Structure formats: structure tokens, C-alpha cells
């Protein structure tokens, strides 16, 4: 299995993430989409490191991204919790306080 297969999986995962972000009404699914995009990036890091690099740079970046994603999830879920308290919903389309 060559590099192309990994990139294909990564691209598919990215596309699925994007679609989840764009399409899903619930913010939790949007967050899932973001996680999927981040993991698509991780696959790319690891794959390029495996086939083209010599060292652990790609893999280290992947670990950073995982940590980043965890932090991002914590912050995002806190926001979601607050939004839910305020608007009693988790759908971003209904959070429209700044619209006229």
C-alpha cells in the first residue's frame, strides 16, 4: 500500500468532516466534523513522515494536533454548554442574538 492510499483515506475523512460541518444542524456534529478534519490532517502527517521523512517530525506534529484537538474540544464543549444555557438549543442557526 503506497502513500496514495493513505492520502485518499485522509482526503475522504477531510471531505466527510467538511460535509459534517456544513450539513449538520447540531453543533455537536459540527464539532465531530472538526475532529474528523484534524484527524485527516494527522493521517497526512503520519503518512508523509512514514514515506518521505527520516525522523519523528510528522509523528510529533500528530501528537501535538491530538493534544490541540483535546484542548479545542474542552473549550468548544464549554462554549456549547453556555450557549445551551443561554439559548436552550445546540443549533448554531438558532443562535442569532447579533442579527437584527
Amino acid at each position, binding site marked *: 500500500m503506497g502513500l496514495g492510499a493513505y492520502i485518499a483515506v485522509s482526503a475522504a475523512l477531510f471531505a466527510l468532516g*467538511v460535509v459534517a*460541518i456544513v450539513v449538520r444542524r447540531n453543533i455537536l456534529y459540527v464539532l465531530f466534523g472538526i475532529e474528523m478534519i484534524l484527524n485527516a490532517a494527522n493521517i497526512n502527517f503520519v503518512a508523509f513522515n512514514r514515506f518521505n521523512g527520516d525522523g519523528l517530525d510528522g509523528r510529533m506534529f500528530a501528537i501535538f494536533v491530538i493534544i490541540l484537538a483535546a484542548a479545542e474540544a474542552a473549550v468548544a464543549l464549554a462554549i456549547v454548554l453556555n450557549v445551551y444555557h443561554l439559548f436552550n438549543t445546540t443549533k*448554531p442557526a438558532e443562535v442569532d442574538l447579533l*442579527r437584527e
Partner: protein
Amino acid sequence: MDLTFHPESDFKLLLAVPLIPLCGYLLQIFFGRFLPRKGDWLLTGGMFATMCITLYMFAKAMNHAYSGGGHGGHDEHEALIGFFHESRHTGFKWSWLFQTGEAPDSVRNLTIGLLYDGLGAAMLAVVGVVSFFVHLFSMGYMQGDRRYHIFFANISLFTVAMLGLVLSDNIVFLFIFWEIMGLMSYLLIGHLAQDPTSHRINHAARACKKAFLTTRVGDVCLFIGFMMFFLHYETFFFSELWAQVNADVALNGWQSWHTTAGLFLFGGTVGKSAQFPLHIWLPDAMEGPTPVSAMIHAATMVAAGVFLLGRLYPVLSPEVLGVVTVTGATTAIFAATIGMTVFDIKGVLAYSTISQLGFMVAAIGCGGVGLVAGLWHMVTHAFFKACLFLSAGSVIHGCHHEQDMRKMGGLRKKMPITFACMLICTLAISGVPLFSGFYSKDKIVMASFLSLGHEFNGPALWASIALPAAAAITAFYMFRLIFMTFFGAPRDSHVHEHAHESPWPMTVSLMGLAFLGIFGGHLWLNGDLLGAHGTWWEKLVMNEHNLADLSKMYGGVELQNTYGGAAMDPHGHVAHSAHIWALGVSSFVAALGIFAAWLIYHKKKIDPARITARLGGLYTTVANKYYIDEFVEITVIKSSVVTARFLRWFDENIIDGCVLLVGRINRTLGFIAAWFDKTFVDGLVNFLGTLSNAMGSALRLLQTGRIQQYISFAVAGGLLAAAWLILS
């Protein structure tokens, strides 16, 4: 007592003459009502001090005249100029106006100084004495007046104005005091106009307005006249003006503008001294309280006009003097004829004043000896006319403000002092020998004869006829007044029963003035009884008895408008016969007038009603004062009113129309501008706003606030960019 005039010290004393009553005026006008007796003692006392100073200074001038004048004992300069002192030569002067760009000592800067000569000395003394007696008289006469303190204040300032006028050494200050006098005459004639309880309130208001406006015509003429002289000679000082005019005329002769300017100057006299045709204010001025009339008719106001002629005589051309003579003589006979028909006791005196002023003016017009005689008549007239007015006031006071002579009669026993004083002064004004008026009037008649004898001319001929005739009429109407008032049976028993002699301040004043009415003219001061060899007056004003040398009156200026010396010499043949003729004629006409009055009004041999009936229309014309007032009413006042109406119409239609038109044009332009603003300027601004708004609205469609949409766009954009990269 040292009776030599020392300019250094004596000018300071002279300065006190107007300043004492001026301070009195200021005190009185502000604090008079709080003083005991409302302050009359303050001003009367102040005026007494003023009178004493003027008499002391007069004594110095007389001492100079009688101690030989120019004949040795004095230095040569004084021998040349006579008794003539100007304070500015001793450094006693004040700067009044500086012209920019002029040196500090330039003649065009106006400085005030005092001028003291024989004429001024006599006039100052006359004003001081008459004014004092009028003040004293007013203490009795004005008792109970509502504005007693204001009256005293005003009459005091009136005196200040005349004193200042006499002492001025330049014509601007003379003019300033002249105008103050005009104002005070207005306030005093209108004294009763301020009293709401007076039944004469409207008359008084009209009379003071008339006096002020009529004299104003003359004042404007005077101003034009002296400014014309100023433009040519650039000086306001009398002495410099006399010298420069006569030096100029000696070289170049009289110019036509001299005559024009001189006529304007004479216009001032015509207004102030009530000469025809501006005499109309003087009879109406009787509305003022009697002491005011005495002041106006004797010492101030009308005397100012004659005094002005005396001061400005050297600048009047012979043509002007001709006009002066004709005006004076016409006024004399004209007013005398009216005087015969008047029944108001003060009215008779008013017309007699106009007539006597005519004598003075006519005499000054004759020049030479006439000038001296006219000014002398001003002095003697001041005494007896003041006394006559105060006597009339005393009669009016005694008769409870009845002024109609037809209701009087038989007052001789009731008011003996008043009667005696009035009789003395009537004899004086009628020109009965040995009374003061005789001397001056005799000299006036002589001057007109002399002028005629020297050179046959129209003005002198008219004066020679009119003046003796007027003198006869004067004697007639004055004795008519005496007979109607004091003699015969009482015509109105009510008035007669209540008549009483006046209180002492009034009778003392009368006696003082009557004394001067007898002796003001002559006697112990004259060389001889009839004054043929020089009277005190001639010695005073000319320093010596030489009628040829008028220059001594004017500080040594060689006069160019007077005849040569020979004709003026009183010892010459022409002068001698003129004097004899004048003596005879004036005595004769006085006797004639008195006899006629005695015949008609005392003996009642002739009924005055029959004479008036026979004269018919002529009498009506004279009794209506020749319809001069009506003439003025029709010509001047009506035309003024018509002019005013026309101007009002012009204002309302043309001027207002123009203003409104401009306004309307502006308004229309404003509308156009507003339309432009609203349409174009506002349109542009609104268009920009609308444009921004529309663009904002359009762009807003993109800014939905939906994160997912933004991401869609971002992804789409990314895909497009990728596609473009791949395809290219």
C-alpha cells in the same frame, strides 16, 4: 484802593465772575430743594458777590478812562491799543481743542481766554447789576411757585451764559455761551409749561418752542458767518480777526464774500435781538415769569445780539452796515406802531424792547459815533427796561396776575413806589432830557443825521426819518401805559380793591434800577450836563474823547468800514449841527408823544375808539401785528408742514418701497437658493447616503452570521482556487 488793571492778578478775579453763579447753579440744581427757603439766598448772595466783582473791575476800567487813558502815564503800547486786555497774552488760557498735525501754539488750535475792554467792562457790570436785582426781585415775585428752586437755578445759569459771552475772547466761546443762553431762554420762557396747575401751560409751551426755533434760525446764520471768516483767516480770536480783516481790506478792498459772511453774522443778531422779521418770538416770550422777561429784555439774550454786533463791527462791510441800518430802523418804527395797539402791560413793554433794539441796531449800522451810541443805548436801556419790566411785574403781582391794562387804572395811590420807579423809567425810555435814555437816544438820532450829512445815502435817510418817528411813538405808548395803569378812575373795582404794594425785595430792586435809570446816562461822570464834550461811556470804550479814533475800541485796529476822521469829529461843523438838530428833534418828539398820550388817555379830549374807527383797516392790521405771525404761519410753518408731509409720503412710499423691493428681491433669491439647496445639494447628499445604504444592504445578504454558510463559502472558494490551479 488800587484801581489800576493788572492783567496777571485781575483776570483771575474776572474768572470768578462766571464761576460763582455757575457753582451756585450746580449746588442749586442738585441740592436746592433741600436748602432753607429753597436756596434762593444762596444764588442771590452769589450774584451779589458777582456784582461786586464786576463793579470793582468796572471801576478799574473807568479809572483808566478818567486817569487820562492814552495821554501819558502809560506806556506807548497801551496808548496805542487803549484799555484792551486779553488774558492769553499773560499766559492765562486753557487749551480746548487740538487739531491733529498742528503745532501746540498754532492758531488753529482752540484756546479759551478772557477779553476785557471798555465795552466788556460796562456790559459785565450791567449784567451783574441787573441780574442781581432780578434775583432779588424774584425772591418776592416767585413766592409760592411750584418750581421755585429750579427757577433760581435756571436764571442763574442764564446769567452765567451772558457773563461768559461778554468775557469770551474768541467767537467759538461766544457762540457756545450764546447757545447756552438760547437753551436757558427756552427753559425759562417755558417755566410755567412744567407746572400742571398753570392755566397758561399750553401758551408757555408754545412760546418757549417758538422762541427757541426762531432764534435758532439766527444761530445757524451766525455759525455759517463766522465759519466763513474762519475759512479765510483761520482764527477765531476777535482781536486777530479784526486785525486780519482790516489789513486784508486795506490792501484788497472789501470782497463780496465779506458782505455775504457779514450778512450771515448779522443774521445771528436778527434772531437773538429780535429784529424784523425774526422778532416774532419776543412778544410771545412774555409767557415766562416777569423776572425772566426782565432778564431777556434787559441784560441777557437780546443784549447779546447787540453786543455781538459791537464785537464784530470791524469785520462788517459798508454794505452790511447799510442792511443793518435799514433793518434796525424798520424794526424800530414797526414795533413802535404795534406797541400803540397792545393792551397787555407786558406786551407793550415787549414791543418797546423790539423797537429800542431797532434803535441800537440802526445806530450801529450808521457806524462811527452811531456804534458808540448804539452800544451805549444797550447799557442805559438795560437799566430802565429791567426796571420797567420789574415794575410791570410788581403791578401784575399787586393785581393778582391781571395783565390787561384796561382792567387797571388809579393804581398810583395803591402802589406809590412802583409808580415812581416806573414813571422814572418811562421818562428815561421816552427820551426826556436829563434821564439816561435821552443821552443815548439823542446820540443815536445824531448818528443817523451825521451819517446822512456825511454822505447822502438811503439807509441813513430812512434811519433819520424812522428813528425820530419811532421815538415819538415810544413816548406816546409808554405814557399811554402809565396813564392807563396808574391814573384815572379804577376800571375794574375788583382788581383795584385787592391791589397792594409789593414786598421789600421787589421794591428795593425797583428803586435800585430806577436810580440807574436816571443816572446811568450822565451827570457826575460827564464832562458837562448834556455830555457834549464826551460822556463817561465814550471815555470808557474809546479811552479818550475822540470819535475819530474808533480803533481804540478794538485794540488799535485801523477800521476800514468807518468814515474818515473829519466827519466823526464832534467838534467839527457837521457834527456840531447834527448834534444840535438831534438834541432838538429828540426833545421835541418826546414832548410830542407825551403830550398826545396825555391828551388822549388822561384828559380824554380825544376818544381813542374814534381814532381806531377812522383808521379802520390800518388799525386792524397794526393791532394784529401786521399779520407777521399769520404770514409766518402760512409761509414757514405751513410750508414746513407740507414739506414734512411730502417727506413722510416720500419716506413711506419711495424709501420704504425701495427697502421693501430690496427685501422682496432678497426673499425671492432666497427661495431660489433654498430650492437649489433642497433639490441639488440635499439631493447629492441624500443620493450618497442612499447609495451607501443600498450597497450595505446588498452586502448584508452575504453576512448571514451562519458559520456553516461561511465555511461552505470558504470550502467552495478553496475548491475553486484548487480547480483553477489544477486546470491552469
